[in-house]
Structures are given as C-alpha cells and as structure tokens.
C-alpha cells in the first residue's frame, strides 16, 4: 500500500514538473513572439515617415503607397497570442507588409533624386537596422516554437499538453512569393 502511494506521488510529481516545463516553454515562445511584435511596431512607426519623404517624388506609385498604408493598419490589429491560427494570420499579415515595403524600396531605385536625399538615406538605414533586428527576433521565435512543439507533440507530452490546453504554435515561414524558384529565362527573355 505504501509503495503504491509512493509510486503515485512520484508519478504526480513527474506529471507536475512536465506540465510546468511545458508552460515554461510556451511562455518562452510567447516571449519570443512579443520580441517580434516589438520590432514590427518599430517598423510600423517608420513607415509613415518613409512614405511622407517619398510622396512628392513618387506620385505615380500612389497605389503602392496606399496598399502599404492599408497593410500597416491591418498588421497592427490586436490578436490572441495563445490562438495558433490568430498568430499565423498575424505573422502572414506582417509578411505581406514586408513584401510590399520591399517592392517599394526597389521602386525607390528608379527615382535618383529621392534616392540621394539625406533623410531618405537615413530612413532606409534605420529601416534596414530594424529589419535585421526583426530577422533575429524571428529566428529566436522559430527556435522557441521548435522546443515547444517538440514537447507538445511527442508522447506523453501530448497527453499533458491536451489536459493543460497547450497547443503547438506556428513557425514563422517565408511567404510563398519568396520561396518560388526564380525563372531566369523569364527574366532574361
């Protein structure tokens, strides 16, 4: 009888520490996600400044600038960090914005007067710096999510995760437009 009680107590202790470890891993992943959000916020704050500088030179790119403004507002919407689908949508929205800004920066190259403006150069440097920080934050997020998902998906972790309501989180994945192979024949004609 005593042995049984000891075994049960040991099992309960193991289950508790496993649960605590899982919660810790989820919190690490959430912390990493907030690291991304901090950088996304910094990037979002830069966008109006960049668009204002570019506006008087890039009148023909009005549609692109309006797209960027709309995507910026969409990416800044609050979301439930514990809902994997909401996180996935949030990251996808941020990536769409990044793709549009990338397109915008390429178009800036067609306007030499704008390209050589000191304030535009400074804005681009600051933007690049934020992108580097964002890239680092994404890598950390993916690393934390790997650890969490391994704990949640491998038996018996999946049992404890199910009871505790801990779900796998989505990885940051590059958008489809980025991973498509480049068709050199198409480009070179």
């Amino acid at each position, binding site marked *: 009888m005593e042995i049984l009680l000891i075994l049960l107590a040991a099992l309960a202790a193991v289950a508790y520490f496993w649960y605590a470890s899982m919660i810790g891993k989820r919190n690490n992943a959430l912390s*990493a996600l907030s*690291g991304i959000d901090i950088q996304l916020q910094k990037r979002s704050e830069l966008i109006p400044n960049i668009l204002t500088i570019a506006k008087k030179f890039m009148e023909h790119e009005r549609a692109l600038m309006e797209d960027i403004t709309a995507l910026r507002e969409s990416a800044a919407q609050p979301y439930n960090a514990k809902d994997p689908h909401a996180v996935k949508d949030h990251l996808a929205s941020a990536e769409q914005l990044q793709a549009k800004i990338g397109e915008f920066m390429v178009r800036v190259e067609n306007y030499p007067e704008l390209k050589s403006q000191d304030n535009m150069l400074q804005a681009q440097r600051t933007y690049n710096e934020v992108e*580097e*920080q964002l*890239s*680092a*934050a994404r*890598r*950390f997020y993916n*690393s934390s999510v790997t650890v969490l998902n391994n704990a949640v998906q491998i038996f018996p972790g999946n049992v404890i995760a199910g009871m505790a309501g801990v779900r796998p989180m989505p990885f940051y994945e590059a958008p489809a437009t980025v991973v498509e192979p480049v068709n050199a024949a198409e480009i070179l004609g």
Partner: protein
Amino acid sequence: MSFHAAYRLLLGDYGERLSRIPPLSQEIRAFTGFQEHYQQHIEPHLWKFEQQRQETLSIMRQRLVRFAMALPFLLIGGLVLFFVLGQIGIFLLCLGIFAGLYYCYLPAQHYQRTIKSIIFPAILRYFGEHYTFTERPSFRAEELRPSYLIPHFDEEKHEDEITGAYKGVAIHIIESELIDVRRNDKGKRRVTLFKGLFILFSVHKSFQGMTVIRRDSGRLGNIFSKPGHLERVRLEDPQFESTFEVYSNDQIEARYLLTTSFMGRLLKLEQVFHGNSIEASFYDNKLLLKIATRKDWFRSSSVFSPATFHTDMETVLTEMQTLFQIIGILKLDQDIGM
C-alpha cells in the same frame, strides 16, 4: 642561440656583414607603396643597426670566451658539490651553465628588443601613422575578464602589443600566455592554459548585452564551464553548433550579431588559422577574438643575420595581412549586417 652559432662566434666568425643595401624581396614589394615607405623610414637605420649588431656580436664573443675559460672550473666545482651534496650538486652545476649561457645571450636579446622598439613601429606606420607597437606592454589579462573568455590563471606573459585601425575598424592585438601553477606532492608544475593572440575589434553594430562564443567542450564540460548568468543560445547552423557553444543575456541580440552568414565566416576563419581554436566575445561594443596558436608572432630577426630587416619586414607585413584578413572575412568593415 644554437650550439653551432655559439661555436662559430667563439672562433671569431661573425657571419655575413652588411656591405651594401640589398633590394627588397618580391614578397615585400608586393605591398603597394612600401618601397617608398622603406626608403624614407627604415633604410636610414640600416648602417647604425649593422654597427650595433657587430658590437653586440663582439660583446657576446667576449662573454663566451670568459664562459669557456670558466667552464672547467665550473665542472670541477660541480663534481665536488656532487660528492658533497649529491644530486643538488648536479642541479647547481646545470644552473650555473644555463646562467652562464644566458649571460652570453643577453646582448642578443637587447639587440632584438631594439629592433622591435625602433624598426617594428616604423614598419607598422606603413599601415597608418596612428599605429603603435609596444614590445613589453603593461597590459593585464584581467582587463578582458568581462568577456568570459579568460580562464583562471596564476601567471601571465604579454608581448608585442599593436594598436591601430584598418578600413575604419579599430584593432588592438596582444600576444599572450596564461599559465596555471599547480601544486602537488612533487612540487610545482606550470601548465599553459592559453598561448596565442587576443585581438579586439570595434564593431559597427551597436549592442547592449553580451554574447560569448566558446569551444564546445562536450556535454559535461559545457555544464561546468557555463558563464554565470548567461543563457545558452541554440543556433541553426549544425556545423557551428557542433564546434561552438554560444551564451548570451539577450537571445534576440545574439541572433542579431550571429547571423547565419557570420557563423559561416567564423568557421572559415578557423581555416585561415590552420584549425587553431578560436573563441569570441561580443561585449562592451567590442568583438574580442581569442586565437590559440603555438606560433611566436612578430619575431625579430637574429643577431647573426645582417641588419637588412628583410625578415622583420616580411614577418610584420605578412602577419598583419593575415590579421587584417579577419576584418575582411568577418566583414567587420561593412555595414551589411555582418
């Protein structure tokens, strides 16, 4: 000083004497503009140093002759001590012989130090007027303790400290040896913990925290050598992960500094130094590289060679070029995100 060199010196053979200024070698001429720099800053010293070299050899010969004359008496005294004191006598005899030989070698050491204090700075000024060279620096390894790369040591030796800048990157080089003195029943034993170069670079990326890149010392070794409050950082490059252990107080900043391309470049750097172990630390807005190497860097030419300084110039120029490669390989001079 080899036995052969000492024997020749004893016989009054001072070797080849500088009779005319030889042309620079192809290796040296490959450095653009060095010919003009040499003619302006180094060539004027040649004859003065050749004279000093001849005087040094003469003093060394005199001392060798005195030592040779004293040697029979030293040996007899040693034998007597051996019969009286036993093995201590042999030890005292050996000590006497080494002391005598060192006394004979001292003038050569002084000559080589003079080359390092006058010629080496003149060579280094080819890279920029701001370059400094200190043969015996007052540097202390404790200054680098915040990097978490310095082991606990009992003794330290430093030499050949160089400061300057290359392509806008400030560079500070010190050749160092850190020694642990271990005591056991048999007495004291000196163990070299580290011999090689410490190189400090300025970094154009600003960062607040610290990130340490150490050699992977196995599962158990890593547990015991983990720097206090720093967290383990797991990175994506499998080869990098198997070679190094990374610790940081900021997971995101560590990845900001250690981009995937930077990790690849750090691995490539090991090849430049022929597989010698490299460790690094980003702290206090600096990058410290710790390169373990048995090679004696920045060695001056022998007193037995004519004072042309060709060997010294080749040594300094090629060794600095190797160290500058670090800046190129790690792209420390470019604002591209490392």
